[in-house]
């Protein structure tokens, strides 16, 4: 497995690669560079989702609570205001609601399914950075370093960035799959939201068509990630996290993630055949 993963990474020209998975059927986990830190890109939205639903479970928010849609945020670095670039954000629907309100669950869905940066920062604002950090501490998610909202360029210049490890994201997704720390309703809602993911060129592209994946991608100029829970017929799911780092001009990122996803799928499938 390790040799196969290393080869895929080397052939694709990735500068760094980390993989972690946990198979609920065989109660078996495996990782490669699982504790290496990467810029989180949009995978940080999974920990934000946990923070949102922790607030829901505590009664601070309700999934139907309404949030004022406003494109104005405050940098954690120096308190200066900034906005999400409308032309670069992937969800026009949230931008079209500026001045009005949207429900927490609608924003959460946009944050994950279309990776809306505006929805993400609105949810971070309403829940609070400190509260989300506290949630991650309570859950023991050491491999997630959540510092700020997205597109906070002043914070970026000050080297205040969100970071994750493969182990960290794996643990975050297991919190949802395990249904231990959150109410069953919140876990189901989070899974539904992750299942609504619209970017499918990573983990799902390496799987057979009958696989369903609840996942979150993340991509900026130098990283491309995917992290998800894979559901196959007649077996318990497995969780897989694939984090990659690239030169700014590199191509073939998604196909490489798909190949790693395929390798993990074949590995767990082989395990099924071996162990009945």
């Amino acid at each position: 497995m390790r040799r196969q993963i290393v080869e895929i990474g080397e052939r694709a020209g990735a500068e760094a690669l980390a993989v972690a998975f946990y198979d609920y059927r065989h109660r078996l986990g495996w990782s490669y560079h699982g504790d290496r830190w990467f810029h989180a890109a949009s995978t940080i939205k999974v920990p934000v989702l946990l923070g949102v639903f922790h607030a829901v479970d505590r009664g601070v928010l309700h999934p139907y609570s309404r949030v004022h849609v406003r494109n104005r945020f405050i940098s954690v670095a120096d308190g200066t205001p900034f906005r999400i670039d409308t032309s670069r954000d992937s969800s026009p629907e949230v931008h079209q609601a500026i001045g009005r309100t949207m429900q927490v669950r609608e924003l959460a869905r946009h944050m994950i399914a279309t990776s809306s940066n505006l929805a993400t920062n609105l949810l971070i604002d309403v829940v609070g950075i400190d509260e989300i950090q506290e949630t991650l501490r309570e859950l023991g998610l050491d491999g997630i370093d959540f510092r700020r909202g997205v597109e906070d360029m002043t914070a970026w210049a000050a080297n205040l960035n969100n970071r994750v490890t493969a182990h960290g994201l794996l643990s975050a997704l297991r919190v949802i799959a395990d249904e231990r720390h959150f109410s069953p309703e919140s876990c189901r809602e989070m899974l539904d939201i992750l299942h609504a993911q619209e970017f499918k060129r990573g983990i799902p592209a390496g799987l057979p068509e009958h696989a369903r994946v609840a996942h979150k991608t993340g991509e900026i100029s130098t990283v491309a990630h995917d992290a998800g829970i894979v559901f196959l017929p007649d077996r318990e799911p497995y969780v897989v996290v694939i984090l990659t780092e690239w030169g700014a001009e590199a191509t073939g990122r998604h196909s490489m993630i798909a190949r790693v996803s395929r390798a993990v799928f074949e590995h767990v499938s082989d395990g099924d055949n071996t162990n009945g």
Partner: protein
Amino acid sequence: MATTPTAEPVQFDLPVIDGFELEERYRLLLRPDELMPDATGELRRLPRFFLEVDSWQTALTTQLTEHFTLSEFMVVDVREAPALRDFPRHIPCAVTLLAAQLEMFRREAGAPVYISANGGYRTPAHALSDYGSTHCWATAANIYRIGDEYLDTRERIEKYGRIASRAMPGCWVRPYGNVKGYADDHLHIDIGYVVQIPHGTPGERAQDL
């Protein structure tokens, strides 16, 4: 000689409530007639009399002026105190004066005027009411869009600010800027710390003066 009106006046029929008579759970949050410091630290007296609105449907169908319904001044989000997001809700009576002034502004602007969520009446218990802004008197409006134009640039905010100053005598327009006390993604207009005491409401009691 008596004259008859030539046009049907805008009318609504909402009960006026003395804040002193409200249930304690509302009174503690709405703080009728209490003093609240404004942004400069000056103490201002909060409104005592409120229009009582029993449902969102009532708010939607209560036409304050030709183009503004009461509902447009009542949209708040999760930052409003939970007890005050439910009905019945209580809106200071001076909201009618603001609506009348905004109607004149709309006429001058020549396009529909959209008030943002949290941009009409905010109670003193609202999370954004860290000081007594005129939103707590229902005499302020945050306008994020006029016609098809979003007011998120200096040019547009200042353009419509000038129109407001012309159309609404005595109004105050928050200047453009990105620090506290300024606005850079909406136009804030208010008519000051105005309270309206409708006819038929109880007067001041001598022992309270």
